[in-house]
């Protein structure tokens, strides 16, 4: 993913000016100490997904110490369960020297928060943390200056504990932030690199903190975009074709007269029915008959791999070293295999939703979106409105995983609201979700490896169809290698897009299955083979930690198998070892235990990192073992959770997460990395348990039995 290009960005770009509209906005804010901070270059990111925004970046983060002593933190990031509400509050509290519970997070509101390209790519901790820490450190300095003035002493004489400034040798002289802030309004732009705390002085960063939003979520008070109710609001149902990509030819809405109070909305290809009652809107929409021109099906979930192979010819070399022919020549054993992975849905439990209204010439919306600023821009473009006339409000998001980077539902809701001149709520049905999700793309990976008589890898050829190159930079030391990417975004029968660690799930599955197959051919133990061939020390350390924690040498129970997979994502190294049981007569796989070791750099919230890792692994079991979109062209056969199985309670194994201690380094991504290794580890464990090598995900009972039959 492109944002990775800015991994080096840290504190270099602190001097970008604040543009005038932001200045006006700051005037409107109430009193207190306000610190704004800009890192200009972030705005120049060509964002992934559909945000092509070059929005004039003004500042990336700011905070306001209010007159009551509480602190507002403004960030364009959103909360979708990844826990940044908590971890961002932690870093801010750390530098400002206040309690983490005194912070109010204001997130993703396009009028209140600084521009942000979107919440994806495990970037929040990596790039928002330094900004917030700097802003908080600056605010602390201002508050100390004020206190110094108050007591008539120098800054060095003062100390802060929990939002109160003390005179060091006379603690009876103290004053709270609240008192210092009262009646003041100081707006400070950061112009220098502020003094940040050293890791050894951390009190809050690195400590486990339970999700700050948990109470709202267990009481049902947390609001999601389908929970907003506006006066006079109507509910919308869009009339959908059976086949993705169909064109509307003719609309027969004559049956609508059976329903009282319904209204038909027709705007280009969009046809919808609205009513004050969502079920009536639904029923009525079912009675609207549209004649569609359906696209011809070119592939289904079985033929898709051949189709991709045949239709994508263009390729680019991503990485290349040595000489492939020389690699072949020195190899004693050559192993060639193709790996396959079907389309996957994001399948968040919250479907795409949006609630919105127009007032005068302004649009206000709550949307389940990972990209509120991108959505704002899309909406402004759709209606040819200035950006300031579109306001996306803060709201919880019921799971995103990359699927809510795209905001078709927001555009639809706004079009319907405009047409009907009423506030509108649009909540996609599960079936719509299974058609208009931007699925994780199917992938084909052609792999050749060569190994010499000493068990050293000498050759690696990796041709990736559709899965991208994220995480594929070789961390095994192989002198002759080439990785190529074959891609064409328009070849898929329906929309595709980013899915938790895009592409890296498919490529890691292929690489780690193939490494294991190669190790097996040499007769060397899978752990030893990897340690012998790794060139990346971080990765070796991570693998060793996983193996120790797991107990790689432990005797296996009958029918059980162990499998390893390694991977790299968002700056984090991951090693997973899985234990499964396979029933040889039914082919059923029961995951028993998963150990995941990671080097995530600095852990801001070790507890949160654990939650994300456990979640990623659990979600990953789904793609590894069950999930596969069934389709014929644009006709989706997978339409609900009956025919698209995700992981459940009973198939969740015991999960243990361990982290390499690395508090002195920068924090790396945490929401995505762990998931990439699940497919490979499971496939390898299945092979170890029963001898079935399945090169296609999901590793289903049927595929296992087939592999067993053909040996």
């Amino acid at each position, binding site marked *: 993913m492109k944002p990775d290009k800015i991994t080096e960005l840290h504190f270099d770009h602190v001097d970008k000016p604040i543009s005038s509209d932001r200045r006006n906005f700051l005037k409107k804010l109430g009193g207190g100490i306000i610190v704004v901070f800009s890192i200009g270059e972030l705005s120049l990111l060509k964002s992934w997904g559909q945000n092509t925004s070059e929005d004039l970046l003004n500042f990336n983060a700011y905070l306001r110490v209010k007159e009551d002593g509480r602190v507002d933190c403004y960030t364009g990031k959103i909360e979708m369960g990844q826990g940044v509400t908590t971890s961002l509050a932690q870093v801010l509290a750390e530098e400002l020297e206040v309690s983490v519970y005194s912070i109010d997070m204001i997130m993703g509101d396009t009028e209140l928060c600084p521009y942000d390209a979107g919440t994806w790519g495990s970037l929040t901790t990596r790039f928002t943390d330094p900004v917030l820490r700097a802003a908080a450190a600056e605010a602390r300095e201002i508050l100390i200056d004020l206190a110094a003035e108050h007591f008539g002493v120098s800054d060095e004489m003062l100390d802060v504990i929990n939002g109160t400034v003390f005179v060091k040798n006379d603690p009876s002289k103290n004053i709270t932030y609240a008192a210092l802030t009262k009646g003041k309004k100081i707006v400070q732009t950061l112009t220098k690199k502020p003094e940040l705390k050293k890791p050894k002085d951390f009190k809050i960063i690195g400590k486990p903190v339970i999700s700050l939003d*948990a109470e709202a979520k267990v009481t049902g008070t947390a609001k*999601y975009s389908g929970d907003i109710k506006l006066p006079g609001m109507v509910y919308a149902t869009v009339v959908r074709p059976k086949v993705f990509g169909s064109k509307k030819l003719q609309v027969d809405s004559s049956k609508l007269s059976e329903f009282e109070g319904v209204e038909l909305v027709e705007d280009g290809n969009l046809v919808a029915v609205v009513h004050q009652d969502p079920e009536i809107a639904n029923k009525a929409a079912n009675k609207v008959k549209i004649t569609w021109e359906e696209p011809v099906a070119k592939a289904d979930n079985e033929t898709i791999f051949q189709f991709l192979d045949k239709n994508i010819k263009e390729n680019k070399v991503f990485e290349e070293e040595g000489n492939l022919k020389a690699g072949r020549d020195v190899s004693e054993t050559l192993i060639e295999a193709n790996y396959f992975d079907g389309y996957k849905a994001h399948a968040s439990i*919250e479907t795409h939703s949006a609630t919105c209204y127009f007032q005068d010439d302004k649009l206000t919306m709550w949307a389940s979106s990972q990209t509120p600023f991108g959505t704002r821009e899309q909406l402004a473009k759709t209606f040819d409105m200035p950006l300031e006339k579109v306001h996306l409000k803060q709201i919880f998001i019921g799971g995103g995983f990359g699927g809510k980077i795209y905001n078709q539902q927001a555009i639809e809701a706004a079009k319907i609201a405009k047409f009907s001149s009423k506030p509108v709520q649009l909540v996609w049905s599960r079936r719509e979700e299974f058609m208009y999700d931007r699925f994780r793309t199917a992938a084909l990976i052609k792999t050749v490896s060569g190994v010499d008589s000493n068990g050293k890898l000498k050759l690696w050829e990796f041709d990736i169809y559709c899965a991208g190159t994220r995480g594929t930079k070789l961390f095994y030391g192989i002198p002759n290698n080439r990785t190529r990417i074959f891609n064409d975004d328009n070849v898929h029968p329906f929309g595709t897009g980013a899915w938790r660690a895009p592409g890296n799930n498919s490529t890691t599955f292929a690489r780690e299955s193939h490494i294991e197959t190669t190790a097996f051919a040499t007769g060397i133990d899978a752990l030893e083979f990897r340690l012998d061939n790794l060139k990346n020390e971080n990765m070796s350390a991570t693998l060793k930690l996983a193996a120790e924690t797991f107990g790689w040498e432990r005797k296996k129970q009958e029918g059980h198998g162990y499998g390893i997979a390694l991977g790299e994502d968002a700056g984090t190294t991951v090693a997973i070892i899985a234990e499964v049981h396979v029933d040889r007569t039914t082919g059923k796989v029961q995951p028993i235990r998963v150990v995941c070791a990671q080097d995530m750099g600095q852990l801001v919230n070790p507890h949160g990192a654990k939650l994300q890792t*456990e979640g990623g692994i659990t979600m990953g079991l789904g793609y590894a073992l069950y999930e596969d979109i069934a389709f014929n062209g644009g006709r989706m056969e997978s339409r609900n959770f009956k025919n698209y199985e995700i992981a459940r309670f009973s198939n969740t194994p015991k999960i243990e997460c361990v982290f390499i201690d690395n508090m002195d380094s920068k924090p790396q991504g945490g929401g995505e990395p762990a998931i990439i290794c699940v497919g490979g580890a499971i496939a390898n464990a299945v092979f170890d348990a029963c001898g079935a090598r399945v090169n296609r995900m999901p590793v289903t009972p049927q595929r296992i039995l087939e592999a067993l039959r053909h040996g």
Partner: protein
Amino acid sequence: MKQSISFKLNHELVSVNVNGEESLLTVIRTYLDKTGTKYGCGLGDCGACTILIDNKPQRSCMILVEDVAGKEILTIEGLSSNGSLHPIQKSFIAHDALQCGFCTPGMIMNAYGLLIGDPNPTREKIISGMEENLCRCGSYNRIVDAIQTAAKEMNKKIKL
């Protein structure tokens, strides 16, 4: 056909004037403004809409509102009492048994129903009793732990 239907919702008598074939989920969310109960599929597959009807966990998306006339319904909003959280809610927080929180109300209500039926379930019983509730964020293990802790707490209370 609209009809007046009365039932108890979170210990209070309510009446709605709706088509009896509306789903209970729609009525609770749209007409009674209790949005803690979530729509995840509308097909009985995910459990996000789970509530209690006469102390039994049910999928509110699969229940017609006319069938609950005179019954007692409990949603997530009715679980805490006198401003203090229910032991299951507390234990979900303590175990951080949630991420995005969208499945959480349904999980908690299903767990409550399970514990009413069996105050002392084994881990296996909890897993099988919760099996039809889906969590895409993958909080399953923590949810099981949370339910075990909550069961202990609730039993303590009963004994006192």
